[in-house]
C-alpha cells in the first residue's frame, strides 16, 4: 500500500487514540492493568536476556585482550557502556517488539474481527482511545524501568562470570564499572527506550486496529507489527544517536 497513505492513516489514528477520555476513572484502571500485563509480563524475558548478554560481553572482551598493555578495568567499563548505550535500550526494545508487538496486534486484531470494536463504537465509546491509549501510556512508563533494570542485571551477569571464571581480578572489573562514567549516556538510553516503546505499542495497535477479514489476517497483522516496529526502531536508533551524541 502507498506509504504516504499509510503514514497519514497512522497519524489520524494517533489523534483518535489521544483524544480526551470521557471516563477518566475507567482509563486509569486500564492503565494500571496494562502496567501489570505489559510490565510484569516483560520482566522475565528482559532479566534472562540481559543477564546472559552481560555475561557474554564481559567474557568476549576479557578473552580478546591479549596485549599486556591493555588496562583490565576497561573490561568492566566496556560491559557497562555496552549495556547502557545499546543493549538495554535498542536490543531490549527489539526483543519486546517481538513479544509485546505481536501480542498487542493479535489482541486488538481479534477484537476487530470479532466485532468487539464495532460494539464499542456503537455504544459511542472511542474504541481507539479506550483500548489503545492505556497500552501506549503503560509501555512508555514501564520502558525506562525495564531499561535500568536491564543495565543492572547485565552488569551483574558480567560480575558473576568474572567471579566464576576469574579471568581477570574482580577488583579490576568493579573499578572499571565506576570509571569515566558519563551520565548523559543514561539520558540518551532512556530517551531511546521511551521512543522505541511508543513505536512498538502504537505501530502494533495500528496494525491490529485496521485488520479486515479473519484469523489469517490477524496472524499477518502480528507479523507486520513486529517487522514494522523493528525497522522503525533501527531507523530511529540511527537518527537519535546522530541527534543526541554528535
Amino acid at each position, binding site marked *: 500500500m502507498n506509504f504516504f497513505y499509510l503514514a497519514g492513516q497512522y497519524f489520524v489514528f494517533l489523534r483518535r487514540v489521544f483524544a480526551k477520555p470521557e471516563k477518566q476513572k*475507567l482509563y486509569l484502571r486500564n492503565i494500571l492493568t496494562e502496567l501489570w500485563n505489559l510490565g510484569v509480563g516483560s520482566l522475565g524475558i528482559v532479566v534472562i536476556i540481559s543477564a546472559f548478554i552481560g555475561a557474554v560481553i564481559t567474557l568476549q572482551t576479557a578473552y580478546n585482550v591479549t596485549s599486556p598493555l591493555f588496562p583490565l578495568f576497561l573490561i568492566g567499563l566496556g560491559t557497562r557502556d555496552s549495556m547502557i548505550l545499546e543493549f538495554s535500550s535498542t536490543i531490549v526494545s527489539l526483543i519486546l517488539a517481538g513479544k509485546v508487538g505481536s501480542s498487542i496486534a493479535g489482541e486488538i486484531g481479534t477484537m476487530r474481527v470479532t*466485532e468487539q470494536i*464495532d460494539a464499542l*463504537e*456503537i*455504544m*459511542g465509546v472511542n474504541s481507539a482511545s479506550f483500548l489503545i491509549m492505556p497500552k501506549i501510556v503503560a509501555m512508555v512508563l514501564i520502558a525506562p524501568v525495564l531499561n535500568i533494570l536491564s543495565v543492572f542485571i547485565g552488569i551483574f551477569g558480567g560480575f558473576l562470570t568474572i567471579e566464576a571464571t576469574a579471568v581477570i581480578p574482580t577488583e579490576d572489573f568493579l573499578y572499571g564499572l565506576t570509571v569515566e562514567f558519563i551520565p548523559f549516556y543514561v539520558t540518551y538510553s532512556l530517551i531511546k527506550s521511551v521512543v522505541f516503546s511508543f513505536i512498538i505499542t502504537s505501530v502494533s495497535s495500528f496494525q491490529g486496529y485496521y485488520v479486515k477479514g479473519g484469523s489469517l489476517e490477524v496472524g499477518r497483522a502480528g507479523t507486520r507489527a513486529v517487522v514494522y516496529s523493528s525497522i522503525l526502531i533501527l531507523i530511529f536508533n540511527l537518527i537519535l544517536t546522530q541527534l543526541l551524541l554528535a
Partner: protein
Amino acid sequence: MIEVRNINKSFNNVPALKDISCVFHPGEVNLVIGRSGSGKTVLLKTIVGLHHPDSGDILFNGRNFVTMTNYERQHIRREIGMLFQGGALFDWATVEENVRFPLDFFTNWTKLEKNQRVEFCLERVNLSHAAKLKPSEISGGMQKRVAIARAIALNPKYLFCDEPNSGLDPQTATVIDDLILEITKEYNITTVVNTHDLNSVLAVGERIVFIYQGEKWWEGNRESILQAHNAELREYLYASEVLKKSGLLK
C-alpha cells in the same frame, strides 16, 4: 421510528446498497431478509453509522443521523443497542462485567443501582447463574443472550440484531427470537433484525423487507409473504424444504 431514505453505499465502486428506503416502527420487530451477501449487514451497519452512506438520509425520530455532527451522533448512539452476529462480547470481561460496561461508561449511577440493573438484565435473559463466567466459558446461545442483556442495559429506543440465531440449533434460535420479540413489546423498542432464517420470518416478522443484490425487492408482513408473486422472493422461500413441504406456500 427510523426512516431510511434512498440510501446508496458502494465499496470500491461496487454497489452494496442501491437506493434503499424503508420505515421501521416502534414496538415492532422489523425483519430484513435476503440471501447471504445481499447487503443485510451493510444496511444495518449503515443505519447505525458504522458505515457512512454515499447518499441518502437516515432519520431517528426525525433526527437526521447522516448530516449531524459527531457529538450529536454520540447522543443517539446511546439510545441504540446492537446485537452482533458473533455476539461481540468483550472477552476480557465476565458476563456480568459485559452487561455493566455501558452503565460504567455512560451513567453516573451508584454501585448499588448498577448492580441492580445488571441483575435485572441478566434475570431477563435467564442468565443470573452465569454472571461470573467468561464469554469463552458459555455456549453460543448463552453468548447471544448476554449480548441481548448488554444491548438493553441502557434501555435503548432502538435495537439492531444481525443474524441473532445464526449458528444456533432451531430450539435455541426460537428462544432468542422470542426474547427479542418480548423485549420489543415490553419496552416499545424499534427493533430491526437481519436474518436468513425462515423460521424467524414466520414467527416474529411483523414487517418484512426483502433485499436482493443490494436492492429492496419486496416489502410486507408474514401473512403476505406466503402469497407474494415476486419471483426472486419465491425462489428464496422455496430454498426451504420445510416451507415447501408444509404446503404453506401458495
